[in-house]
């Protein structure tokens, strides 16, 4: 029988994969991909909780997360393109204006 814990563990593993990607990649596009993984991992958790507690709030949250992810992708890509046009690179190392 698959329990809630299974889903949550899966969600945790996916999240960690996302984290690894976030830390490892320096290509901004890849960072976006990793972010999508993080969001999806959370979504799985939400939906699973929603199912096992018989509560729709989880699904609602997942729904809104998807909406946010969509907007994020749109704006993020726009910015990315702008950056690429200006610098000719989407590498993180080109983004170092905040050096303290």
């Amino acid at each position: 029988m698959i329990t809630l814990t299974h889903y949550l563990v899966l969600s945790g593993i996916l999240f960690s994969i996302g984290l690894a990607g976030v830390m490892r990649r320096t290509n901004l596009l890849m960072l976006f991909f990793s972010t999508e993984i993080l969001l999806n991992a959370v979504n799985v958790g939400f939906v699973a909780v929603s199912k096992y507690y018989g509560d729709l709030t989880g699904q609602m949250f997942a729904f809104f997360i998807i909406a946010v992810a969509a907007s994020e992708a749109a704006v993020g890509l726009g910015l990315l393109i702008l950056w690429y046009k200006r610098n000719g690179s989407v590498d993180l190392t080109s983004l170092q204006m905040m050096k303290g």
Partner: protein
Amino acid sequence: MEKYVYIALFAPLLSSLFVALFATRPKILFMGILASLLIGASMISSFILLFYVNAHGALHVKMMDWISAGNLEIPFGFVVDQVSVIMMVTVTFVSTIIHVYSIGYMDHDKSFNRFFSYLSAFVFSMLILVMSDNFVGLFIGWEGVGLCSWLLIGFWYHKPSAAWAANEAFIMNRIADLGMLMGLFLIYWQIGSFQYDIVFASIKFLDISIVTTIGIFLFIGAMGKSAQFPLHTWLADAMEGPTPVSALIHAATMVTAGVYLVIRCGDIYSLIPHIGFAIASLGAFVAVFAASMALVNNDLKRIIAYSTLSQLGYMFVAAGLGAYWIALFHLMTHAFFKSLLFLGAGNVMHAMHDELNIKKMGGLYGSMKATAILMSVASVALAGIYPFAGFFSKDMILEVAFNEGAYFLWFALFIGAGMTAFYSFRLVMLVFFGEKEHTKYGIHPHEAQPFVIYALMPLGLLAVIAGFFEHAFRGFVTKLLTNYDIQIAHGTEVLLIAATLGIAISGISFAIYMYSRGGFSKTLENRFCYKLLINQYFIPKLYELYIMKPFGAISNFLWQKIDVKIIDFSVDMVAKILYTSGEKSRKMQSGNLSDMLRWMVVGIVILLAVAIFYRPIV
């Protein structure tokens, strides 16, 4: 009569304050005369009060409230009773003479006015000390005389030795004063008052251990002021002050304050005879101890200072054994002949241009006959030869010791009497007779001004005849103090007197014999005994080595190591840690997004770990 109390007390203050206004001006002769007149007025008032007290009994004056807090009420109150009036008379009498004498002595000093201001201030403090009707008032005077002593010892402050001696005297006295303060605190919390009458009335209801503690603490106070062992070193060093000061403060009056305290607290000490006996033993020890140091010293004033110390020991023997009136009597006679001795020494010093080494004098009799005679009279009185004043008082102290069965004390005092006779005549011989050593140094001694000699006359007279007032004195003071009778069989008494006189006379004769033949051989100076004595038993050295130096070292250690290196350092450390951690963690802000993301994940990991290990109580 109250007005005489106030005149006696405040005339010296007035003198001091008025003269102080001109302290920085060059010499104004009138200031000296004015001060002497005002002190004289105080003296006359004291004599009037003496007769009044004799006729009508004690006089009690309350001037105003001083401190009041909680249950504590301390007034400025003055009591003129048999004891205090005797002290007042002694103090003002000697002071007046010394004021007059000082006009001559300080003639050429540029701080003439300042000197009189200080001297009068001292008289005022001393009068407060003796006249106060409560312990705190006594303490005011006690500290006041300490202050004046500091000012006067350090009068020639440009001499480092004087400055040092002044501080030493003040600090030593402070040590003792702390003991006295503790005694006062204990009295307050047990009895709730500092008034003599209330304290003495209720002291007998207290637990004996508490009374003992009070007695010990008060005596610690007395030890400092009266320079008893081990707080005695300041007295000899105090001779750095001008000679009139030595005569007034460090011989006749201030140093006897300790004795006065013990006499005044007779009601306390008679309850605790064992402490009294300890006091007497210490007194006897000091009597011999100081006399032995006087035997070899070559400093004119120091010899007399040690002699004072020794005589204070005698007084403490009497006071400790309960013979308060005898102690007071000796205090009085001692004041006369000792100040005379000092003032004579002052004349000699002037004549010798401030030379103090008696080995460099000799043969001064020819040029200063009057001084020589006066000093010899004083020395005879000091040695205790009949019929001079010292004989009566000192001999009685020996009898008291014998009477109490404290034969050991008696023996010590007996030896002390012999030593006293010897060193006082050693001094007389070396200074006034024998070879004229001073001619080698090109000094031409001259006698002091005539009025100075006349001023000394009354003292000389009293040094001779004061002893004959013994019975009148006894009758007068025993109205207040507990009487003390010497119950020794007549035969024994005669024998004792004979023995005492005998040792005194033999001491004198030995001194005269030896020093008329040129003194002891130089070889004796290499002996250990001599070195021990001339170095004052190495006690000042010990103090310097084991108290002053370690104190300085510890202070420095506390400051340099503890305060700066540990405490302040740790405070700065906190600041430094914060600062460096900021400085270090600044590098985290590399601006690299990847790094920042890593830090973020580190944060997540930490939070997760916290979530595992910390669970809120459900």
